[in-house]
């Protein structure tokens, strides 16, 4: 399956992402999940960026927290809008998971 997952928390309470094995994995960082894209702790990027996946971060949720594309610490994370999410869901993936 082609699965796009939504990560909306900074501190995760589930380890489901470690165990999902789709043929194609997308990770959309939204709400407080955007901090995974922007925030290092003691100099280290979030371990959430270590999966083999296509990464996206929601522009509106970055901005609402005082952050912008410039704060994104890893080039592989693409800044997207709600409209882009719709296109990703319909064109690139067949299932979704809000974790």
């Amino acid at each position, binding site marked *: 399956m082609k699965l796009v997952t939504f990560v909306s928390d900074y501190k995760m309470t*589930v380890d*489901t992402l470690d*165990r*999902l094995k789709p043929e194609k994995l997308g990770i959309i960082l939204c709400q407080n999940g955007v901090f995974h894209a922007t925030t290092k702790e003691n100099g280290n990027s979030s371990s959430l960026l270590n999966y083999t996946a296509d990464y996206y971060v929601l522009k509106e949720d970055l901005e609402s927290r005082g952050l912008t594309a410039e704060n994104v610490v890893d080039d592989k994370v693409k800044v997207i809008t709600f409209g882009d999410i719709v296109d990703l869901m319909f064109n690139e993936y067949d*299932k*979704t*998971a*809000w*974790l």
Partner: protein
Amino acid sequence: MATTKLGFIVQRPGLKSENQKLALTHAIASQSVEIYLDDDDEVLCDVAFIGDGVLNCIKDQKTLENYDLNSTESHVKMGLLCDLNIFVCKEDLEKFGLSESDIVMDANEIGGDMDVRVVPYDEITKMMEEMNHLLFF
């Protein structure tokens, strides 16, 4: 005749939020969905407990006595009575030192034929692959 399959994945312990119980009540609602469908069309719901979610399956829950609330256990039994496939991840149970004797396994006392199926995570992955849509709780 068309069938849509929905996979309900419960990954958190319950009661603090009502979501875990709503997973079961929504899955059980597949029994009455035909009013929205054409003849012979159907929606099938499988339920899987993984991670900390398996803690929802510990038996002898006294939720009614303490909080005047139906227990998640009673909903699992109702799901079995409605012939839902209910999976519990074997590795996660083992991680917590739990066995089949610690969890709700059947709904015999209310006339259910189905049993809870304790399966390796790989089988739950397979279930997820087969579903049309996934709902994580």
